[in-house]
């Protein structure tokens, strides 16, 4: 990033110049599939506490783009969550304003 002096001189025309250099983090930590990384092959529907990390506060499934789960395991997570819901181990819906 150009120093303040350089920016003040206007070395490059057309480029946006700031009084103080902006410090925005652009390279975020890459998401990864935790099942592939830790070698989990089977997702147990009986372990409701673990499955809770894949649903939001309302009890809806979180998308892959948020959790980073690979497609193969996202399908398995979905099946496990649905089984857990059937057995009342997990809620179908949670009303937040109750």
């Amino acid at each position, binding site marked *: 990033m150009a120093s303040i002096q350089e920016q003040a001189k206007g070395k490059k025309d057309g480029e946006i110049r700031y009084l103080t250099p902006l410090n925005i983090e652009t390279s975020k930590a890459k998401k990864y599939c935790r099942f592939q990384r830790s070698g989990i*092959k*089977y997702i147990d529907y009986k372990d409701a506490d673990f499955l809770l990390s894949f649903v939001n506060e309302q009890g809806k499934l979180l998308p892959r783009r948020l959790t980073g789960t690979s497609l193969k395991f996202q399908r398995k997570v979905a099946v496990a969550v649905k089984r857990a*819901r*059937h*057995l009342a181990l997990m809620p179908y819906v949670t009303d937040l304003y109750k």
Partner: protein
Amino acid sequence: MNHYETVFILNPVLSEEQIKETVKKYEDILVSKGAKMISKEDWGLKKFAYAIQHKKSGFYHMFEYTAPGESINPMEVEFRRDERIMRYLTVKLDKHAIAWAEKRRNRNSKQKAKA
């Protein structure tokens, strides 16, 4: 022979005697159809995540067994007819699931030994 796992929920109003009797009944049905029991688990009275038949808790029981595929349907018909059973779920286990179930069983038995 396939590997299966069945979880079923019993009505919470039942007495201990009735529960034992019901569990025994389904075990007998399975065995008479040629199943081989691997493990039986009693999870006890658990709270539901939502109300089922206006009840907030139930007795969870789990069977793990190997059985011929034709034996599952008669058992599930019995489940549906039985008023004591509130919910049931039968799952066929693949090879990863079998490995996991074994690990889980060992862990549970170890915990029991400690307690």
